[in-house]
């Protein structure tokens, strides 16, 4: 279960996507997320999905690994889909039993939502898969550097974010270790009813919280010892510069945005009945 948490993980390869400027990747991932939410019919959604798949393909991160990242939100997807299936009553009625009536509209709506949530996550994981934590902070830092002029030290924020990201794998490892240790003492995390399972979280979370705060203190002291005092006057060794590839990415993102807008206008707001009839 824990091994499936891929958010915040870096997948070191040497693809075009990996080499893009982190600022570019950050901004355009954000753009993608906005536009996959904005896209309001199956055609423009399909266009978003195709673009996400293309990015995945170019990054050379195995599709299997990317899809594995969806497992933790499987429950969210299932619940939302079920709600759509139960509550959306448009389209042709298919099956009805007890008080539930399943319609074609509900099913299409469920598919729509599933695709949208899935690819939203796929793109966000692509960002961390292809950007090392160092270059991510560097990017964030530079992207928000104008704020320094307003007296806001954004470096502290990026530092907090990097530390948070950096500690996800460490904490996962820690959890794995604690689970193994408690299992060695006969703890059973996998069976029993919900109350028994909830109770089994105590041997997991007490040490985890304790160790995390210990780690946090240690890290804070270590940073203080190395004279960390926020980003004031900090210079960087690797200055970020936009390269040709970054301009190509920018161009493609503009194409993507225009594509979604045009498809949205052309096919109009998604209407279950209409789509279904058109499909038949």
């Amino acid at each position, binding site marked *: 279960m824990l091994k499936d948490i891929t958010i915040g993980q870096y997948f070191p390869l040497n693809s075009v996507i990996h080499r893009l400027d982190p600022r570019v990747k950050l901004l355009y991932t954000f753009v993608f997320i906005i536009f996959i939410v904005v896209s309001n019919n199956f055609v423009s959604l399909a266009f978003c999905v195709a673009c996400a798949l293309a990015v995945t393909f170019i990054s050379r991160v195995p599709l299997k690994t990317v899809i594995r990242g969806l497992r933790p939100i499987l429950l969210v997807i299932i619940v939302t889909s079920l709600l759509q299936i139960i509550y959306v009553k448009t389209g042709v009625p298919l099956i009805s039993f007890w008080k539930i009536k399943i319609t074609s509209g509900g099913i299409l709506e469920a598919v729509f939502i599933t695709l949208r949530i899935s690819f939203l996550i796929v793109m966000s994981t692509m960002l961390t898969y292809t950007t090392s934590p160092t270059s991510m902070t560097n990017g964030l830092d530079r992207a928000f550097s104008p704020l320094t002029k307003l007296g806001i030290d954004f470096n502290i924020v990026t530092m907090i974010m990097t530390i948070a990201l950096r500690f996800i794998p460490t904490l996962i490892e820690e959890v794995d270790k604690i689970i193994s*240790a408690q299992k060695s*003492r*006969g703890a059973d995390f996998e069976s029993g009813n919900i109350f028994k399972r909830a109770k089994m979280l105590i041997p997991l979370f007490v040490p985890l919280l304790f160790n995390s705060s210990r780690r946090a203190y240690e890290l804070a002291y270590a940073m203080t010892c190395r004279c960390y005092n926020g980003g004031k006057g900090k210079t960087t060794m690797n200055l970020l510069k936009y390269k040709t590839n970054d301009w190509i990415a920018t161009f493609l993102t503009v194409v993507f945005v225009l594509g979604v807008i045009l498809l949205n206008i052309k096919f109009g707001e998604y209407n279950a009945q209409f789509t279904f009839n058109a499909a038949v």
Partner: protein
Amino acid sequence: MSFLRTENLSYIYGEGTPFCVTALNKVNIEVEKGEIVAVIGQTGSGKSTLMQQLNGLLKPTEGRVLLDGEDIRSSKAKKLETRFRVGLCFQYPEYQLFENTVYDDIAFGPKNMGLSETEVDKRVRDAAKYVGIPDSAFATHPFDLSGGEKRRVAIAGVISMEPEILILDEPTSGLDPKGREQILSLIKNYRDRTGKTVIIVSHSMNDVAKIASKVIVMYNAKVLMTGTVDEVFEQSEKLCQIGLSVPQITEVFTKLHTMGYPVSEKVYTTEQAYRELKRVLGGGGANA
């Protein structure tokens, strides 16, 4: 037939990702009843992974682990049974304490075994005695103890299950000399009084020479050497090559030997050193 045995045991971490690492590569080891086996090797040589295989926490990529001639992963019940028969105490076990009192933490294992309350109580008291935790400390919060005490409480938490094989992963790391001594003597005590098997992973050659009856040397996910303390530490050159060493006292005697003094090089503990010096000095070797 050995009590505990591995057959071509292999394990790969993160198979199919760019991070994949072979932690164990066709490892065959044999452990007899009542032995104190020490596993030594550099960091990352696969020692800890091997330990987690022995009580069935990890699923082998290849090969199997046999306890009393039976595969420990043959069924779910067998797997759970193995956890109680092979007690594994992780490195820095004090970070896994969680109960409100020392007593409850030691009782966690036996309670999971489904033992009666009187039996649990007996086991907790026995285990606490082994590790030298007085009854008066039972009501203390584990987090209020010192590092060495926490470590001993954590070890008691495994001993209280009375495992047939007790595995300790670097039980003395990060402790002061007194703490180390206490842990080592409690391990020895446990073996001597119960006749049970103990496997310890260690980086301290001194500790290994002091208590082990058999030494397994791991290198690069493989077993490089197996033998008695003498057999392994004899090959000091080979050990140095793979980043290990021999006990300090052995280094002293090797040096004396090369300097021309008529002492044996096969000295691994202070006690042996004492006897060897007495032999050399007392037996007409006063001019040496």
